[in-house]
């Protein structure tokens, strides 16, 4: 035994399954942070651009210009990290692609068109500032928004298909012999899942951008430029937040109806019963009992189907054999992620409500420092909520890669070198991730040095000495 463990070849014989999972998770969870920016930032930029042209608003114009320059960076990183995923579907899950590529791939064929459109028009928009006429330039940005929406719907359609496989016929040997592309794309899970991700893109994108400007305002940069940036981005997020509560709730009920095992993991339900409590935190133990956490009696049943209330029966994990349900560890990951997603989602919703109500009654944004502090953290919280939601969907489907039809362990590559590619990818992504943030910060600092806006006498004490800026504009308050 000792001899084999010292054998340098032993390390190359590591089971690829865990490494492949880790690599897929890493690359997807990295890419998914860039998705909201790709989908919703262009929309926010166009709002600023529209304002600039319609009302001759220079702050808004500068905002749109700078945002488009940041977008150039995040879009590039998103484009290349997305490409990696296309490679990985085959590199990590070749048997999945072999058997199901003809169905799973269909939405991607259409996604390609949207991605082309997005890449073409984002180039025209980003590079066209100085030469296109202002309104032509504005309209060149509109296809980015439209393509971003349909592109993300297409990708989510493929993921939804893994949750609700449909639109194919299998032959006697289990291989796919006929495909109905329309039913593949418009599978049962697609409408709600796509809506959930699309709204998430606007919610996360909005909060992420807004949090940067909230931080700047806390540091005393409360000029009109920063406030405009905050108002546009935070308003987008604030509109998305309540919609997301509704969409998320509907999707949870869809999971209750169609993926009972995932639902049981979400709600931590070991055995089928009615009057199921909503357990906040807590964990499933190896013996199948739930310990810890704060149970709210009957709430999970009631939420699953309010019409039958606490009498609603929720299927338990034990209704399927152990090898057809997530492991105890996976159940706990799913449940915790669910709590994180719903908890943070609710907090963000309350923040949005604060903002909305203040606008409604006072016709201005909240002035309290606490609000700005909360808004400054909202971006990170929104990203965490989205990642948690991704974990719920993906880990909750385990052990299936195609729900009920193919297990992850049967899909994985036989290539034993995945551990190495994982390590290299992890290092490269770490470097790219850190550099992206540093580059964006450097751009922002340079923009600030270049001047173009004025620091106001802020209602909030500046926490750093005001940067020297060149007053160019009238102060508008």
């Amino acid at each position, binding site marked *: 035994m000792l001899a084999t463990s010292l054998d340098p070849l032993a390390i190359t014989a590591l089971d690829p399954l865990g490494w492949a999972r880790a690599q897929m998770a890493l690359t997807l969870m990295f890419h998914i942070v860039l998705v909201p920016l790709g989908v919703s930032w262009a929309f926010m930029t166009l709002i600023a651009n529209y304002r600039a042209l319609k009302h001759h608003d220079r702050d808004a114009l500068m905002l749109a210009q700078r945002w488009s320059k940041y977008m150039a960076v995040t879009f590039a990183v998103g484009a*290349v990290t997305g490409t990696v995923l296309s*490679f*990985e579907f085959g590199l990590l899950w*070749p048997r999945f692609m072999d058997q199901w590529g003809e169905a799973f*791939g*269909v939405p*991607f064929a259409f996604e390609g*068109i949207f991605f082309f459109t997005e890449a073409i028009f984002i180039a025209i928009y980003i590079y066209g500032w100085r030469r296109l006429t202002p309104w032509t330039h504005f309209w060149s940005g509109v296809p980015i928004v439209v393509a971003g929406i349909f592109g993300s719907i297409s990708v989510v359609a493929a993921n939804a298909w893994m949750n609700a496989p449909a639109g194919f016929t299998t032959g006697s040997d289990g291989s796919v012999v006929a495909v109905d592309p329309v039913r593949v794309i418009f599978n049962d899970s697609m409408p709600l899942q796509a809506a959930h991700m699309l709204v998430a893109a606007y919610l996360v994108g909005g909060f992420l951008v807004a949090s940067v400007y909230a931080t700047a305002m806390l540091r005393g940069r409360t000029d009109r430029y920063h406030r405009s940036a905050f108002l546009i981005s935070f308003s987008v997020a604030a509109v998305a937040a309540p919609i997301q509560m509704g969409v998320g709730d509907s999707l949870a009920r869809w999971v209750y109806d169609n993926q009972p095992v995932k639902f049981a993991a979400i709600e931590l339900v070991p055995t089928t019963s009615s009057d199921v409590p909503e357990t906040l935190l807590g964990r499933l133990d190896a013996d199948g009992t739930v310990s810890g956490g704060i149970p709210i009696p009957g709430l999970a049943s009631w939420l699953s189907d309010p019409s039958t209330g606490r009498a609603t029966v929720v299927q338990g994990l034990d209704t399927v054999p152990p090898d057809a349900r997530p492991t105890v560890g996976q159940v706990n990951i799913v449940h915790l992620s669910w709590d994180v997603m719903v908890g943070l989602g609710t907090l963000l919703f309350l923040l949005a409500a604060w903002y909305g109500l203040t606008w409604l009654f006072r016709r201005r944004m909240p002035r309290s420092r606490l609000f700005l502090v909360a808004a400054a953290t909202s971006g990170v919280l929104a990203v965490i909520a989205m990642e948690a939601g991704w974990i719920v969907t993906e880990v909750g489907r385990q052990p299936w890669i195609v729900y009920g039809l193919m297990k992850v362990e049967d899909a994985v590559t036989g*290539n034993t070198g995945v551990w190495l590619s994982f390590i290299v990818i992890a290092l490269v992504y770490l470097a790219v991730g850190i550099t992206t943030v540093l580059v964006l910060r450097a751009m922002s600092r340079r923009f600030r040095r270049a001047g173009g806006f004025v620091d106001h006498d802020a209602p909030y004490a500046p926490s750093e000495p005001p940067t020297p800026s060149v007053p160019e504009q009238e102060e508008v308050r």
Partner: protein
Amino acid sequence: MSTAVAVVLLVAVIAYAVLGGADFGAGFWDLTAGGPQRGARPRDLVERAIGPVWEANHVWLIFILVILWTSFPEAYASITLTLFVPMMIAALGIVLRGASFAFRKTVVALRYRRIFGAAFAASSVLVPYCMGAIVGGIASGRVPAGGVAGDPARSWINPTSVVGGVLAVAAAAYLAAVYLVQDARRLDEPDMAQHFRRRALVSAVAVAVIAAAGAFVLRADAGHLFDGLTSRALPAVIVSGVCGVGALVLLHRDASRGARALGVVAVAAAVAAWGLAQSPYVLPESLTFSAAAAPTGTLTAVLVAAVLAVVVVVPGFVLLFVLDRRGLLPAEGLEDEADDVLEERPRQRTHSSGHDGA
């Protein structure tokens, strides 16, 4: 129907080769441009030339992968199982290249520009080499059918793959140089035009030598491909050769136009020749396109997507390239110009950029 999809696939590969390939080649010239002083102007030209177009050109690769796995899933499984290493390296190289190119444009400090520039340029060479090696492995019949893994090393470390890899790097560099000559002329930088004209000539000769030497390698190492190139694909080979020589002559005479079009046709015809020589196999001599094909419903969807792509994407590309060529997409500057969009803008032409690939 599987033939129609195979043609779509080939067209996408050609588009990627002549559009995306040139962007990689630009990275090659970036790499070899010399120190920060001497290389500043060529690098600047490269940056302006590929800046607005590389992402759109890059999407062709994603389109190719999607068509391949959707329409010929068994082949994709075999390819990814066998050629795991070069594909993973290519994927990583793509991330490094795209990210560092975007980063380099935005940073000012020379030190960081050099780091990002080096990552961009080195991966611009690494990725096409891997692509060429992958093609070589497939074309020489080293990827077995049936969704099983072939030899993980010799499938891409073999004579045909070496020829494929080196040829891909050289052809990309050649195309890029030809485009950059045109870009330099349009931007009124005659010395840069000469700079890249010399490089276009050298790389044209290099491509021809590699291709000629490669023919002997293929005859010994990839019999099916060699037979195809000398029979079914012979017309495409001849077109490629004639156009290549024509482009060389025009470049030598410093002709004002025509070299680029001929250069593009030469490379496109060479890629088409590979496709024709390999047909009817997606994996030579073990799996045909029709045997690997997905069910009719899937192929129909892919063809519909392809038609939609022609309707939607081609006009978009034409618009992008036309705007680019007319200098309406100047390099995104670092300075803010909030004022001159709202007010009367000076109409003088400063910098324009880009290459028109078609």
